[in-house]
């Protein structure tokens, strides 16, 4: 499942460990395709993920923080940025068609690549995602979901493992109070929370490049981490903001704006 991380101890020990890891990975599941990873291109973020990036053939879950739990704007754009950096067609399953595609095009997602599948029920979104994942050959399958039960997430994870397609679940709830559902366990490989932060200061009045507070809340075979990043650019890439990444970070008011 996981590849060796950068050696921290002496050469010999790390060799043994990486060898063991490989052998365990080969034991874990025989059907898993070696799919590799999609690096963020941000060394700090990639270091927090086993394999040095978001693994293909796995389910990744994104949710917003605060008001973002309902609108899911930042989470959707974060997922779109990842999808934009994959290759191949993308299937986007949703129930509420309020996505404004020009914004997605601005993070490098070509509208020709994205096929939207709109259904009435949440369960249909799960079924459609699974169908897309088991089809194979897609770049990523994105689904906007309210509920992601354990069984459903397990099915998605297994389907993703079989074909090596990346599954991205954007969670958005009807009410902000329902969002504690995000604490429930799921079978997803990584789980992220993306909250909007005040934008970067500009020397002139105006809104600078948006910043996000990205929390890696859970990752298989890895530890949690938090990053303050600058939002996706026109190629879907993030980069680390100069601000501190701990929670003590409080945005100072721009000296230039009113």
């Amino acid at each position, binding site marked *: 499942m996981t590849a060796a991380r950068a050696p921290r101890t002496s050469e010999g020990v790390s060799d043994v460990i990486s060898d063991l890891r490989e052998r365990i990975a080969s034991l874990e599941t025989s059907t898993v395709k070696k799919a590799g990873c999609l690096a963020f291109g941000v060394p700090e973020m990639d270091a927090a993920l086993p394999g040095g990036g978001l693994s293909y053939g796995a389910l990744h879950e994104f949710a917003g923080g605060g008001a973002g739990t309902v609108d899911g704007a*930042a989470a959707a754009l974060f997922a779109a940025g990842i999808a934009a950096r994959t290759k191949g067609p993308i299937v986007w399953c949703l129930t509420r068609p309020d996505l404004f595609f020009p914004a997605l095009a601005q993070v490098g997602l070509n509208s020709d690549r994205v096929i939207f599948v709109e259904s009435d029920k949440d369960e249909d979104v799960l079924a459609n995602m699974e169908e897309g994942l088991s089809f194979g050959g897609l770049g990523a399958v994105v689904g906007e979901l309210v509920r992601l039960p354990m069984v459903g997430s397990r099915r998605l994870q297994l389907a993703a493992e079989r074909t090596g397609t990346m599954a991205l679940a954007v969670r958005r709830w009807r009410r902000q109070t329902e969002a504690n559902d995000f604490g429930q366990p799921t079978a997803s490989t990584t789980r992220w929370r993306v909250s909007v932060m005040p*934008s970067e200061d500009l020397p002139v009045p105006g809104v600078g490049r948006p910043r996000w507070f990205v929390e890696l809340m859970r990752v298989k075979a890895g530890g949690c981490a938090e990053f303050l990043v600058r939002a996706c650019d*026109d190629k879907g890439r993030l980069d680390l903001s100069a601000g501190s990444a701990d929670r003590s970070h409080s945005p100072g008011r721009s000296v230039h704006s009113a």
Partner: protein
Amino acid sequence: MIAKSGSKRWVSAADAAAKKAGVRVGIPAAKAQALFRGLMLVDADLKTDAAALERITLWALTLYSPIVAVDGVDGIVMDTEGADHLQGGELPMVTKIANQFLARKLTARVAVADTWGAAHACARAISRETVIVPIGQTVRAVEKLPISLLRLAPKIVSDLHTLGFQSIGQLANTARAPLNLRFGPEIGRRLDQIFGRVSEPIDPIRTAELIEVARSFAEPIGAAETINKYVGRLIVQLIEELQKKGLGVRRADLIVDKVDGTRQAIRAGTVKPARDVAWLTKLFRDRTEKIEPGFGIEKLTLVAVIAEPLEETQKSSSLVEEEVTDVSPLIDIYGNRGHKVYRLAPMASDVPERSVQRISAVADPIAVAWVGHWRRPVRLLPRPELITAIALMPDYPPASITWRGKRRKVIRADGPERIFGEWWQRDSEMEAVRDYFVIEDESGERLWVFRSGDGVDPETGDHRWFCHGIFA
């Protein structure tokens, strides 16, 4: 329109103008001529009529339901069971059917009922364009209708009239035995059919061009695996037939005949001609669970209702070329499950809600893109929501806004981005102006708000503020 039978000539159809002059269907031709001088008489051509009806029926077969047949000399019957929810219910469905006929300059009377007989009678009795008989209300709907709508031979109808029977209800309440003795079993059979006491399967219309493969079973089958196995074999057969003719299937129907005389149909469509066994098998396998075998299945029939030419193409054998995945089978799977599948494409419009259009998921790639140098929100509210804002006129961003009951202090803002109304779309947009601002509140939430009007001229808008989108 004059029909002939022996030496008798009578009016078999009349247009609106003729009806106004008093010409009715059924009156002798000589009488009609006497009613109106210079009445235009056209001899009825039954053969051409029948051929035209068959053509219309074949067209209807490709529309809603896999089971469509010619009904009498002037009607079409469709089995719409399971088809109505896809159109949003029975009422939208019948309206749509009527409109589709209207679009082809055909005036149709559409009726939906529990049984073929009831629908037949209601469609011919109504003066409106559509009628829906609610489930279980057949008796009430048909009891007052004349017996001529019972699909009996004209001789029997006129004899019953002589005996004083007028409505279907009267006939249904009479003892069966004497009627049987006098007229034979036909009346009883038709009455049972109209009330749904005996089943009346609809034999779908077929022509020589339709490619059809069928398999009958000596012993009725019922197990899911068995059904799947034979469906798979039928698909292979159908593909072979298609291959011979160089066709690909666009729409295929699987018709299941059951032991108790009922019929069920499953339809699968593809976005482009297909001749791939795995692809079609997947589409039908998805839905064979919907088949209710009941007491067993006697016969499975697979028909390619719409087939289009499909030429063999050579796959590029280049090793370096990147492989492009063809997603049309996946699109078919989604489409056959009744989900909306589409792609989004730019529209040449500056008004945000008009700048995106839905196109077919298999449309050719669109080269143009949206103009990228203005920030656009990730979520666009379905309708701009009214907010209260405090702002300096004419062109300052708001200092604070209240949206959905929450007051936000605006820390940073960008704008205005002025968007003019499109006068060619609506008259009211002649002068209309929207000034869009990107605003950011103290918690970092970014919103897209606009003021209707340019802040100076009240003609351009009433200076109310709206929230239109949410940025990431």
